[in-house]
């Protein structure tokens, strides 16, 4: 199946949403994103890692190194309080956008 391009500006929202449930490492995030999107989205590490680093530097995420499920050391990302706030804002905005687009499509 062909993958979809991740819409501009939504990667951060999806990362924050995924990490809101539990801390994950980079590979885990990309896998979770694929499965949650029913394999429609496949995030490229060249986009994922820059986003993770920027969110971490902005204080939305915190990271720690700990053993993974198969006993390898991996860097786990988790939301900070600021990250939660950002997620809430992004989510509300996204719902408005989705509602708006849906209304337009249905009303037309």
């Amino acid at each position: 199946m062909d993958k979809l391009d991740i819409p501009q500006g939504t990667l951060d929202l999806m990362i924050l949403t995924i990490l809101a449930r539990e801390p994950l490492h980079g590979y885990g995030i990309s896998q979770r994103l694929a499965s949650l999107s029913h394999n429609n989205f496949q995030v490229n590490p060249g986009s994922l890692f820059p986003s993770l680093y920027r969110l971490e530097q902005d204080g939305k995420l915190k990271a720690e190194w700990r053993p993974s499920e198969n006993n390898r050391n991996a860097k786990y990302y988790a939301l900070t309080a600021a990250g939660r706030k950002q997620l809430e804002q992004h989510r509300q905005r996204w719902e408005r956008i989705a509602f708006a687009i849906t209304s337009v499509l249905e009303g037309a």
Partner: protein
Amino acid sequence: MTLWHRLTSVVRWMFRRDEAEQRLDDELRSFVDLSAAEKMRDGMAPAEARRLAMIELGGTEQVKERVRRYRHGGLLDEIGRDVRYAFRMFAKTPGFTLVVVLTLALGIGANTAVFTLIDALMLRSLPVHRPGELVQLRMGDPGSTEPGGESFSNAIVRGLAEQRDVFAGVAGYSGGGFDVGPSGAVSRVRGAWVTGGFYGTLGLIPEAGRLLTAQDDERDAPLVAVISYGYWVRQLGRNPGAVGQILQVNGQPVTIVGISPRGFVGANVGAIADLTMPTAALARLEPQAAGLLEPGNFWLRVLARPRPDVTAAEAAARLNTVWPQLADQVIAKHWSASRRQEMKSLVFQQSPGGTGWTYLRDIYRTPLFILMAVVGLVLIIACANVASLLLARASSRQREIAVRLAIGASRGRIIRQLLIESTLLSLIGAALGTQLAWFCGYVFVSILSAQDSGIVFDLSPNWRILAFTCVVATATGILFGAAPALQTSSAEPVAALKKNEMIARTRSRLLPSLISVQVALSLVLVAGAGLFLRTLQNLQSLDPGFSAEGVLLVDLDEHPGALPPALLDDVRRLPGVVAASLASHTPLNGGYWSDAAVPAGQPLPEKDNAIFIGASPGFFPTLQIQIVSGREFSEGDTAGSPAVAVVNETFAQRHFPDRNPVGERLAASVNGDKRDLEIVGVARNTSIAGLRQAPPSTVYVPYAQLNRNRAGSLAVRASGALGQAVSSLQQTLQARIPNMSIEVRPLSTQVAATLVRERLMATLAGGFGVLALALSCIGLYGLLAYTVAQRTREIGIRMALGAQSKRVVGLVIGRATKLVVVGLALGLPATWAGTQWIESMLFGLTPTDPMVLLGSIVLLAASAQLAAFLPARRASRVDPLVALRHE
């Protein structure tokens, strides 16, 4: 919070960059590990799983590069790496780097130097409260755009100060000098006369004591003075009890009431005022100059601070509304009705006053702008020079650049790297250049102080100079770096890796044209310098009609009546003194006295029409001014004897064109008194008012017959060693006039002082012309040396085929000649256009003076030949065998 977070993360990351890189590596490796492990769990072979995982990641380096770019400070990081890389490149080619940096240091330094002077003279604000609010007042004809007169009478300043609904404060001031100290140990202190509102208007806070107020500027107020912080430190050793001390000023006790704040040395830029006194004290301290306080004398500059609620335009409008009625009170009563009306019809003008006032501004504005243009050209030459050096070096970097392009660096990235290199070079050059700027400033001030030893300028760097230098340096870096960067990075990697051909082809057009441009600009600068040099020579070799050699001057503030009676005889008896006399004015002393004088029977003109000089017997022999007809003044011409005059040739020709004027009578106004003078002699014309001016009509009258106090000078002609005459004169005068500081100076320095502007232009333009010439020659040398090195093989083949070394030399010299001829052809019209601009500053020659132009061309051509000689000789010594084995 977020901003703080970002800043700290940038800083943290900058200091722990290596650690962060390591972490990123680890993380990406763990990504691949996890991904491969999952694939193996699905039953894939380990090697295959790993390969797929790597593909999934999409290249470690690419991911790292993108992370770096998105991370805060990522750009900073890349620039930091470019800077480090640039320094490694510089270290690899130290000779090249040195030449480039020195060239840029000269170019940028020259610009900083001239800008520093412009800044010191015109842009620096006075260290006062809100200097931007201050306005300088002038008066001019209504409707005229010309700036009006900037001097005002004491009465007008007082009248303006009363306009409280317009101005919060009005300050009138003028420079002056005082004889300070007890009798017999008097020294000259530079100072200023100010009106009572001076310090209040400027809003200064005293270092100690209080500053002058309106009460101090009343006719009978106690004599008080404010000293400068510098004077307090230098002369009074920071004595805490200085305030309240009594100073002997011009023989009168004056109380120090305060010390002005540190850094403030008066409102006259370039002149330090160590002692400041209210104008009202003038009548008691300098009785002979008391006339300045009368309404007919315009001698005060005015700075005013409009009230905060009044705009500049409103202030001007209100002032001009009240002026007609104010004028009736403040215009001199004895003026004729027409002159009063003329004065009344003038209007006030305002200009920003925060930078203070200096007469130097009017004199040096044009010269400094010309110099700014000159150094601008020097910088362009330096840029062209460095650009050609970079282009020449580009071939050796072609391979390196090609490799970087091949492994995926973008062209923009390469251009940025090259521009960072050139900007760095130019910043290093600028740092060195500031040293040169300092030296130039020193030269400038030392030339200026020949005119006025009291000239002091603050040439210390400030933010404006720093900003100027940085902007110039950055622009320079981009200017000279752009062409080489674009060219170097445009190469096709594959072709470039194979050969250097492509560069060689494009360079062959750009490089030589850079050389020709340098030659053209150099011609402009060398010819300009030549014109200034010849102007100075012409003025120096001019016969002024008097002989300054061996003449010593002493300014005497006292009227001869107050001088010891036999003073002149005592001076004449000193060993080595040939002649001595008193005169109201000495040649080229900057001041003059004009009055009306016409043949008897004609009406006296309203306006002055002749220069008057009061001279004692011996004046003409002292200055060696020839008496063409009749006699000079004698001891018999006293206050009681018939009034006589000596006129100069111009006066004689103008009024008595067909006869000898000796014995004729003149109707004259002398210091306002109608006089009937008998002409007893005709003197040769002298350049008394200025070397450039034609000698004006001049009337000499005996000093003894002057009807009014007039300060004058003692002129002494000495033979033999002047130093001895100076000291014996000094001792004799000091013993007889203990209350005055005696300063003996040669007339020749007074003459030289009138040529300060010309000397300045000749020195600086000459210096920059030589610099331009040297830079162009280095550029030409560099290009030829490089071409010879590149064509070693070709030259070798030619020589192996029998070409003679003479022909090879001819080849190189011929190429140089072609470049120079093209440059000269471009330079001639440019020179013509450029030198029209300085025509008004020249003397005795026109901008198209053939000798100067020819000389400049010859000088340039000869220097170019010299520069071409070394590479040509190297070419002629190419050994065919060595050359062919090369590569």
